[in-house]
Each structure stands twice: as structure tokens, then as C-alpha cells.
């Protein structure tokens, strides 16, 4: 009987916590869980771009990430496949501050050239896949108004409406967030006519070094019938990466890529 009471209390307390959590808290925790795990991180990524007819293109790259104070993040992407992207490096300094542009750089080894990429539209395709830049580095939370649309036994359903509808191709999108891990499991994008046209799903999740981690995700474009499958392997957190790797004011790690990506 005593056990029962304890269990019930626990449930009550937990649901109490759930109930009291504001939308902003949920969204913040989900953002932390999906993009900020660890102080830094590394993963090998295989990206399969599959068109309607079933023909496939593959991108392989190693991704390094480091978190900075205030929510800024830096990414270092080292391409291994396909052959025409081999050894190319893509660096991003994601800035979350109001009105600040991300820094994006592409290093072309054949020319030994570090090219800055015009900031531009974050809703454009990442290396020809169905993922857009914002899927990779995370959409700024301040760009949307968030509402808790539904709470199920296991998930929160958040409706997100852009503050500047002209800057994006969707009218709104919903995200289903796991109550337990706070990982977003499925996002559904609706066009200006309210029709569902795009989904992003976390299809496999594992816990790595204590961090719930998406190890497979799929984007489907319902208009084109194409999809992209991302598979993550060799995931590591809290490696103690050298900050200089990400330093966009310095070309050292472009001219000599770190062992973390070449090996």
C-alpha cells in the first residue's frame, strides 16, 4: 500500500511538472536536447538522397560541433563523398543574437581557397539534399510563435507559426516532442494553403554517453516524392575539441584538417 502511494505521488509530481511547464520551457529543452548535447560533439554522417524514381546520391561527411556561451555554435563539416566534394570543408558560425548573420565558409582544396558564402536563405537545400540549412543547425527559436497544441501520454505537440511569414515557404509547422527525452520526433510542415508537404522524422534514437541522440532521421518532400535519409555513426560527446578548429577568422584548420575528421 505504501509503495502504491509513493508511486502515485511520483506520478502526480511528474505530471505536475509536465503541467506546469510552459511552452517556452518545452521548446527550449527540446532545442537543447536536439542541438546542444554535450560541450562539443562529433559524428560521421551518411546522407542518402533518394528521388521519386528511387535513384540515389550519397554524401558522406564528418561533423564536428562546439557550443559557445549565449547559444552560439560552431560547426566543422569535412566531406568524404562524393568524389567531387572530397576534402571540401564547410564551416558555420551560428549566431543566435538578434539581427546577426551566421558566418558560412566553404574551403575548396583544389584551389586552396577559403570562400565566404553569402548569408542568404536558410531554407535552401543543404548540399542538394531535402534537408535545409536550418534543419542542420537549428531554427532560431525567436523566429516563431510557439503554442502547445496537444499533450499526449508520451509527447507534446507544439504548433509553430513564423513571425515573418514572407521569409519562409511554410505557413506553420508542428513538432512532436518526446516527454521523456525532449527530443523532437516528428516535424510536419504545412504550406500556405494549409496542406502538409514536408516531414522531418527522427526514426532511430539511442542514448550515447547519457545523451539521447538521433542516429537516423528522414526528411520527406511530399511534393516531389523525394526523401533524404541521414544516418549518424561514431558519435562522441565531450571530446575536448580544440576551439581553433572552428575559428572562422583563421584558416589553419582548413589547410590542415584535424585528425578528428580525417581519421
Amino acid at each position, binding site marked *: 500500500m505504501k509503495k502504491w502511494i509513493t508511486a502515485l505521488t511520483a506520478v502526480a509530481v511528474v505530471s505536475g511538472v509536465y503541467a506546469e511547464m510552459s511552452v517556452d520551457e518545452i521548446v527550449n529543452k527540446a532545442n537543447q536536447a536536439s542541438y546542444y548535447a554535450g560541450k562539443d560533439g562529433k559524428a560521421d554522417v551518411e546522407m542518402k*538522397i533518394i*528521388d521519386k524514381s528511387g*535513384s540515389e*546520391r*550519397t554524401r558522406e561527411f564528418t561533423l564536428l560541433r562546439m557550443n559557445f556561451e549565449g547559444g552560439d555554435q560552431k560547426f566543422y563539416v569535412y566531406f568524404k*563523398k*562524393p*568524389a*567531387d566534394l*572530397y*576534402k571540401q570543408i564547410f564551416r558555420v558560425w551560428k549566431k543566435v543574437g538578434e539581427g546577426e*548573420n551566421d*558566418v558560412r565558409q566553404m574551403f*575548396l582544396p*583544389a*584551389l*586552396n*581557397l577559403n570562400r*565566404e558564402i*553569402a*548569408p*542568404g*536563405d536558410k*531554407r*535552401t*537545400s543543404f*548540399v*542538394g*539534399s531535402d534537408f535545409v540549412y536550418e534543419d542542420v543547425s537549428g531554427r532560431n527559436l525567436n523566429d516563431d510563435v510557439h503554442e502547445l497544441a496537444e499533450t499526449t501520454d508520451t509527447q507534446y505537440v507544439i504548433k509553430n507559426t513564423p513571425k515573418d511569414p514572407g521569409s519562409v515557404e511554410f505557413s506553420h509547422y508542428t513538432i512532436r516532442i518526446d516527454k521523456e527525452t525532449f527530443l523532437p520526433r516528428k516535424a510536419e510542415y504545412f504550406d500556405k494553403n494549409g496542406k502538409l508537404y514536408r516531414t522531418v522524422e527522427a526514426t532511430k534514437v539511442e542514448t550515447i554517453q547519457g545523451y539521447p541522440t538521433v542516429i537516423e532521421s528522414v526528411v520527406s518532400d511530399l511534393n516531389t516524392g*523525394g526523401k533524404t535519409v541521414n544516418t549518424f555513426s561514431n558519435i562522441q560527446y565531450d571530446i575536448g575539441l580544440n576551439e*581553433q578548429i572552428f575559428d572562422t*577568422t*583563421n*584558416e*589553419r584548420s582548413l*589547410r*590542415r584538417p584535424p*585528425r578528428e575528421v*580525417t*581519421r
Partner: protein
Amino acid sequence: MDFKKYIPNISSCSLCPSAERVVQISLMSLLAASATYALDTELHGFVDGRGGYRTQNDPYEDERSLSELRLQLDSKTYFDWGEFSARGDFVYDDLADDIEKVDLENGDGFFDLRELNLLFTPVDWSDVKIGRQILTWGTGDLIFINDLFPKDWNSFLLGRDEEYLKAPSDALFASFFPSIGTIDVAYSPRMDADRYVDGRRVSYWNPMQQSIAGQNAVIDAERRDEWFKDYEMSARFYRPVLSWEGALYFYNGFWKSPVGGNANGAYFPRMNAYGASAKGSAGKGLANVEIGYYDSREESGPTQFVPNDEFRFLTGYEREVAKNLTAGVQYYLEWMMDHDGYEQEYNAMYGTTATARDEFRHLLTLRLTKMLMNQNLTLSLFTFYSPSDNDAYFRPIITYKISDHWKVTANGNFFVGESDYTFFGQFKYNSNVNLGVRYSF
């Protein structure tokens, strides 16, 4: 292993034995790299076939502008202490004068060595790369002021892949990383000249003849090839300035093309360059500005002609103007010092000033790039237009990636100009169209 049998007739080459040695070394390293599994080695490359035609008759050049097949092998080997890179092209060029004559300096012959270098970190605050390498810096898009590393203008004008605009340097390249910024120093013990327009493949304005010339007047300038005497030294210092990147440049060497003339013909006069640049984001795009002063270190006289000092200025802005459409504009200025003196010398030599250069050359460029079909189709157009020379150069390129391995390219190089003697006008008979197919592995 006897590598000689894989190198037919190389002993007839004029630069042997050094060329032979380099070819052997690179072949060995490529083979060793690909065969030795114990080493941490990657081997990649491509096969690229390209053909092109002139779109008009050129009285001094072939009708075909390109007809070649190349195999590039690119190997990288990782050690705990550094990296070893070897990259070279085996070329069958149907239009070459003598395909068997390998010249690693100007890229002639069946083998062009692009890279053969060792990169290591002798101390924590410095990286060193020694050997053959591609060097680049500066802020311009296809315009170079302080990047005085060698360019291959023939490849560029004839429509090879853009990576071939950069010719290799044989250099020691050291970078230092003090807290105040980054210092890069490149030292080439022998000058690495541009693979300049010499008339063999591309016709050009010849001031001696006061007309366009080509294979009838091939420029064969004496090379600056004395070790440690004909050296080049380039340095750059760069660091963040507010939220931009600021840089200072210095160069000590030679005019990169043989723009001087003396009793022996065309030659490479001495030159220093001093410059600065800044780049960063502005509004929704990227902006850059770069200046340079070319300090000609020799004097013109009765027996020799050298270019005057020049001030050069560049500014540019690039941004995404619509989804998957990027536009970049640049303004560039060449300002010749002591233009009166130049005109007097020019008149004394050629008996006219009508074909002399202007004091100011203004140039505008526009790059438009549109990506379509999941970025597998790229349409790009780069335009150079000079209102002062009244000439222009259009570079349309269409690239389609058929698969992860296959890529096809169609491109054109079109030159128009009012006069035969202006920078782009002189190339008017070289306008060409090309088709290329590449398999990458």
C-alpha cells in the same frame, strides 16, 4: 621496380633529369600510396575529357581550342606528425606541340604535377608546407591584386575547369599563429611565373607587330630560373578587425608575365607589391575591398622597357538575390603612374600612342549563379566589362551532375572589343565553346 618503362621517351625532355626525377618520385609516391595498405592513405581522382572549338576563324591559331583527356590522381597520406600530398595529371592533349616533352614549370607534356608536398607542425604555433603546392589569397573573384601566385591564363581562357586557373608553386609555405593574428609566408627559391599567353594556343596583341599575333609570333621569354637568386617572397598578415577580416600583403619578386622587353626579347622585370584588404558581411551580403601598389623595381632605358608602377583597387559585393540565385558585382581599377612617361617611351618604340594603354583602366564584373534540380544543375555567367577599354569577356558555364560520379559541363568564353589592343579585345579571335565530361572517383 623500374619506373622508367612507364615513362616513354622522357629522356628526350629538355629539363631532364630534374623533370624525370620529379615524375618518378611522384609516380612512386602515387603507386606506393595506393598499394600500401599499412599507410593511412586515400586515393581519389578523376578522368576528364574536353573538346572545344573557336566560334570564329583565328588567322594564327587552330580551329580547335581544346582536345584533351586527363587522368588526375590525388593521394593523401596521414602520419601522426603530418600529411603527405601527391596530385598529378596525366594528359593526352591532341593539340600539344610535343606531348612527350614534359615541362613541369609551364605544364607542357603528358604529365602536370599539381602537388607534391609535406605538411607538418614543427612547433605548436606554426604549420609548414614544403614542396609543390597551390597557393591562394586575396579577396577578389577572378581578379587578383595581392595574390601574385602563378596563374594559368591559357587554361582559363580556353575553358578548362576553373581549378586550372591556379598553377602550382614550388615553395616553402609557413604559417605562424601568434595571438595578434596569422602570418603566412611563402618562399619560392626559383620564380614560379604565370603560364602566360604566349601565342601558342591563344592569340594576343603583339605591340612589336602592332597587331594581333599567335603562332606566328610565339613569346618565349627567358625564365627566371636561378636557384635562390630568382626567388619570390610573399607574405600576408591577417586578423579580425571589428567583425571583418583585415589583411596586409607584401610581395618581392617579378611581374608574373613577361611584360618587360630588352635586347633578348620579353622578360620578367623585378617588382615589389604592397597591399591591404578587408572583407566581411554588410547588410544581407558580403563585401570586400582590396588595394595594392605594384612597385616596378627596374628603370626603362634605351635598351629595355619595363612597366611603370601601378595602383590597383578592387571592391565587391555578393548576396543571394532570390532562392538559389546569387549575384556578385565588382569594380576594379588599374591606375598607371607616370602615364606621360609611358606614352613617350611607347611612342619612341612603336611610333604611335594610339594603341598605348590608358592611364586608368576601369573594369566591372558581374557573377550570376543559379542552382536548380537539387543543386545538380548549375547555371553561371561571369561577365567582365571595361567601360574605358570598351571590351568585355563573357563566361557562361552550365554544369550538370548526372550522378555521384558523372558530371557534364558546357561552357563558353566570348571576347568582344572595339579595339585589337585592349585587355579583352585582343582575345577576340579566341572566343570558344567547350564540352566536357568528368568521371570522379
